[in-house]
């Protein structure tokens, strides 16, 4: 019976996940003439746009993963503490709303927020020294901007998931902690967060995979800023440029494979350190 349930998923995974990955693997190690060894990879390493893109994506990921983890857990704990039922429900709903926007649409909202000429928070922007859109989207600010956008769109659903996970903790355990004299803070740090470890690891893996593929945000910002945000800011944009600007599908595939390998390696760290596959 179990096989029937997973058959549809497996079919889709093969068609849209494994097959394209295998195709990319073939493309990455070949060129028009046939087997090319690591030539495509060497070409990527020598591309002047590669290392800046690596740095950009890495700084965004580092910022985002930390902020996401800290605030999602914190907010989930707070929402979980709210004893008035409807306030808790409203809070969860409000957190979730931004996540309901599709990727590009949510960036459009930010185009307005980031432009001091039209932004509802222009006072905040100008007080930070940003008098024009060009100054706001200056390269050094981009990891922060992408982090805020990603948090804004993605945190809500994770808060809801963490909230569910908190509900899954046996109330007797919490009760026991309270009897032993633990306050809200100690209950959270000593009981709830350790029991959430798997979920946090799961979130980190998913965010890592999504964040490493940063594309829509810089792409839309690049078009909206008429190129002030470079079109080769992130690795996935570079993948795109290789394929559709340069017509070099082999180089594009090589870069995709590199992204895949790095993401897998990092994800496995979280999986094994977070005990994601351990059985209780």
């Amino acid at each position, binding site marked *: 019976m179990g096989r029937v349930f997973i058959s549809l998923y497996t079919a889709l995974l093969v068609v849209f996940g494994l097959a394209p990955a295998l195709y990319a693997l073939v493309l990455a190690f070949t060129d028009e003439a046939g087997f090319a060894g690591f030539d495509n990879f060497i070409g990527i390493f020598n*591309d*002047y*746009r590669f290392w800046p893109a690596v740095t950009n994506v890495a700084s965004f990921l580092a910022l985002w993963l930390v902020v996401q983890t800290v605030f999602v857990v914190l907010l989930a704990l707070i929402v979980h503490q709210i004893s008035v039922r409807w306030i808790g429900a409203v809070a969860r709903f409000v957190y979730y709303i931004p996540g309901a926007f599709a990727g590009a649409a949510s960036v459009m909202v930010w185009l307005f927020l980031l432009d001091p*000429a*039209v932004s509802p928070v222009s006072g905040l922007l100008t007080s930070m020294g940003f008098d*024009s859109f*060009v*100054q706001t989207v*200056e*390269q050094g600010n981009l990891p922060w901007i992408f982090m805020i956008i990603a948090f804004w769109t993605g945190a809500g659903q994770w808060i809801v998931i963490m909230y569910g996970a908190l509900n899954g903790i046996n109330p007797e355990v919490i009760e026991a902690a309270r009897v032993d004299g633990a306050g809200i803070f100690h209950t959270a740090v000593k009981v709830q967060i350790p029991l959430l470890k798997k979920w946090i690891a799961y979130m980190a893996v998913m965010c890592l995979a999504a964040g490493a593929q940063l594309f829509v945000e810089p792409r839309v910002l690049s*078009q909206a*800023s*008429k*190129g*002030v*945000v*470079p*079109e080769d800011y992130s690795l996935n944009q570079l993948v*795109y440029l290789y*394929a*559709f*600007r*340069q*017509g070099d*599908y082999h180089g594009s595939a090589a870069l995709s494979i590199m992204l895949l390998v790095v993401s897998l390696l990092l994800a496995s760290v979280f999986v094994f350190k977070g005990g994601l596959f351990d059985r209780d």
Partner: protein
Amino acid sequence: MTTIHSMAKRRTGVLLAATGMSALVLAGCSDSAESEDTAFGFPAAEQDAESPITVWVDASREGIAQAFADDNPDLTVNVETYDGNAGGSDTFRTKIASFDQSGEGWPDVVFSSQTNDTSWAGTELNGNQAYAAVLNEGLMDQEYLDGFTEGALDPMTVDGKVYGVRNDLAPVVTYYDQTLMDEFGYEVPTTWEEYLELGERLAEEHPGYILGSVGDSFVGTFVYYFGAQAPIFQVEGNTFTSDFSDDYSVRMTELIDTLVDNGTLVDESVFSAEFLEQYAGKIVAMPGPAWYTGALFENPDSLAYEAGTLGVANPLYWEGDDEVTGNVGGGVWYGSSHSTNLDAVASFLEYVTASDAALEYAGGLPAYQSVADSWLETQSESGFYGGDFAGAMTKAAGSIWSGWGYPSFSAETAYANIVVPALAAGEPVSSVTDAWQEEYLNQAQVQGYDAP
């Protein structure tokens, strides 16, 4: 009004050619639906006069595309707007590359605001036939093609094949505010030296008034450096060169830095709300392309000048040097070599460039000679502009500096992500010319040019 070509006649020709050439077809094409067709000079798809055509335009060209649809009720014309490839966004190329990959979905006609697209649209890409249809080997009448202003089709011509028709010419001229000139007692500058001098006087005598903006990537590159004969973007054969230490380049960099520093050149985009808010009515003079007329000065949503306020003068030159000027794009229309209704494509191209409608919708100097003549006449008669409007435009159109290159990448992107942020941060252009030059050379290398 242009009439639809005799569709039936051309269609028969296509069918005859298709049957006659079927042997060649199988030898030459991977896709059996496409047939080598001597009538057009490229392998055309099977034709169907009923087949709808899809047209991609930018927002400004939507009107005329819609007008064509209205005038041809028998045809189904799907008008879709996109960013017009503006600012070197390369949307056009990336979309076509993905259609090439999937083997279907190409739009029948595309408008691009860039002049360099033929560098890729006119060549085979990864074994896919060139997107742009050859126009001068059967698709369009030679008589029609000969009607363009001399040199207008040059950027779209490779080895004698014409791959696109020019929408408008965009030579840079000098605009000036007659009212302010009179009020301040200034003379219209005729050379870059006088322009610089005027900027220094203006900053001192009337701070807050300006001589233009360098906040747009097309202005910085095409108006100032191109117009100054700065050899920063040159292609010869397959070699790309960029020299910011050349005397012309250095003089222009100094000019810009001086005027930005004293506030007479600003860094707001001429299309931005801030620019309109702060500088409407404060522009004393400004070099800019021919299409500023429709896009900025007469546009009720932009600067919206009163008739008779502005004058147009010859472009700025270096004193005693060649009288040449810059060029800012000038849109190009491409037909698709994959189209199944080339007759409609041909009619469309002729309609948007050479018809009465083309005159009616012209937002700048039309590329088609007869339309341009009527346009210049109407503009001069309307009295909107003082000075010798027709004379300045015509002179500028015929004196585009020939040293500027049209490689397969845009001069604008490097300006946008290196120079614009530097200006916004209050740094002079001279502090980033090294990075700017390096970016050009790097881009050229990635695109397969030799860039020493």
